[in-house]
């Protein structure tokens, strides 16, 4: 039996809007993944430490406060620093189209904008992790 995909869903920064993060976490669980949700107000350092400690396959970041350009790349860079660059990083929240290219360049594999379905996210993670 294949090992269950393990995902960390995290909210970096000061943003407290966690509806999306919680819905995604629950949908991933329903799809058979093992999910850890960090709660709000996490620093990139805290998220990375938990991700490594829990040996996750992927980290999903949620930010609705406009601080994503600062916070998301920080998570990617810290993971790389700690030799965990194989952990897939994706994100969602209120992220203008204009910022997506920059985030992808910084190593965030995909951004799920408002209106995305959880099915898309599940498929994405499954495809990426099983590669």
């Amino acid at each position, binding site marked *: 039996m294949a090992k269950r995909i393990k995902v960390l869903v995290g909210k970096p920064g*000061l*943003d407290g809007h*966690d509806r999306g993060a919680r*819905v995604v976490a629950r949908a991933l669980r329903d799809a058979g993944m093992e999910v850890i949700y960090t709660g*709000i107000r996490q620093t990139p350092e805290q998220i990375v430490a938990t991700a490594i400690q829990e040996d996750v396959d992927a980290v999903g970041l949620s930010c609705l406060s*406009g*601080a994503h350009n600062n916070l998301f790349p920080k998570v990617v860079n810290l993971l790389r620093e700690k030799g965990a660059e194989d952990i897939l990083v994706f994100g969602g929240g209120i992220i203008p189209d*204009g910022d997506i290219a920059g985030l992808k360049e910084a190593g965030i594999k995909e951004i799920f904008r408002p209106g995305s379905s959880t099915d898309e996210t599940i498929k994405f993670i499954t495809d990426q992790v099983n590669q």
Partner: protein
Amino acid sequence: MTCSERKQAFQQRQQQWQELVDKACARFPERRENFATTSGIEMKRLFTPEDVEQVDYTEDIGFPGIYPFTRGVQPTMYRARFWTMRQYAGFGSAEETNKRYKYLLENGQTGLSVAFDLPTQIGYDSDFELSEGEVGKVGVAIDTLADMEMLFDGISLDKVSTSMTINSPAAVLLAMYVAVAEKQGVAPAQLRGTIQNDVLKEYFARGTYIFPPSPSMKIITDIFAFCKDTLPNWNTISISGYHIREAGSTAVQEVAFTLADGLAYVDAAIKTGLDVDVFAKRLSFFFNVHNPFLEEVAKFRAARRLWARLMKERFGAKKPASMMMRFHTQTAGCSLTAQQPDNNVIRVTIQALAAVLGGTNSLHTNSRDEALCLPTEDSVRIALRTQQVIAHESGVADSVDPLAGSYLIESLTSKIEAQALAYIKKIDDLGGVVKAIEVGYIQNEIGDSAYAYQKAVEAKEQIIVGVNKFTIEEAPPENLLTVKAEMEQKQRQKLAQVKESRDNEAVNKALQQLKVVAEDGGNLMIPILAAVKLYASLGEVCGVLRQVFGEYQEQ
């Protein structure tokens, strides 16, 4: 016809209709098996007098301005004055936001509403480590009184009412507002406005908490006591359901959890020795208005009636003003789509109309671009015009509570009231709101509703135009508002300058005094006011309180 002849005629006609329905359904099945509101209340094919048999006009529907205020809290409502048109606004620096306030006032808004950035809302200065990347993004950055002075530059505080969406550090921002007014020569007693100051919902729906519940409640009741004598025209709290609904709750849950929070605040205030008939008239509320038009209209009426009854029955309130639910409404942010954003103007129009037909006292309409960013001038002007068109052109404001008596509306109003009350009783059984939050009851209820909604959208049981139906290929939108990155650096420099030019010895003494009062349990407004006048920063003041009260940890 006699009564029983009338009844017979009705039933015969109803039976006739049912036969037509059966034939019609055989040819054209209805779009769904079951039609229900967000709260799961049956949306019947047809509502008739049978649905309101238990409703007594005089006691349940009544007259506006008279208990239980179902039809409104004022006797003439919008015939005298329209609801306050109060657009929530703020971004970047105090200068930029001041400019936006003047733009909105010039365009006919009738009240100010301040949006603060996250560091400010969480009691951090712009130069704090965790503020990086967040300064000025979701609202204006306020570090010291100097920023607050700039925010209201050229705006006389005796001529406007101002609502400030600030919770955990509400005492500090209120103190700054009072200090700015004083510099303008305006006495505190002349000030009109609101602070949100509703910490309970922060723990389960919004997230800008600082301290644990108990000291937070103390700060809130300190504010009630301070305002009672010093700011008699100030709304000391805006007990909020908006965020609860945004977090994914149903309409019934929005009413239930908001009013449960309200009961907790009233209870806490009474326990400090305040008289309900003295402070309750200065409580206010804040609701969401979402797409399902009919349920939303009924929701507001149910909330007003339920609150009035609870204040009378639970707390023995005697004065009508103590039982009146005055509220602000905001159209639902979570209903806005990033896809085909112009459609949002239509959504907001329908939502705003529901709020007006529900008798809101104040209204914010969202802008079309807000699924993507903060509003541009053009977008916010359209949002304001939406309210003005409703007010001046639709005619709905010319008669009070025009939908009263509708079989559907009165039936839904009664059902929402009953179901919300059932939730409140459940929370009573758990030991009150704080306990309910501790055991995760409220969070789970909201989370379940949010998940069910998402599933319904993905199964296309709930259509969102432009998102899961009627989609198009779209180019990314242009001309969105952005907060420039340099703003953060400039703000930090400004703060450094203020710290340099103030009397630092006096500031330190004031912060020390604040610590003493916090430890002794005295009213915090006094030492906070003294500190902010000396240009102590928000972060410094909250830092002292963090030391004394500790920080809340999410479970």
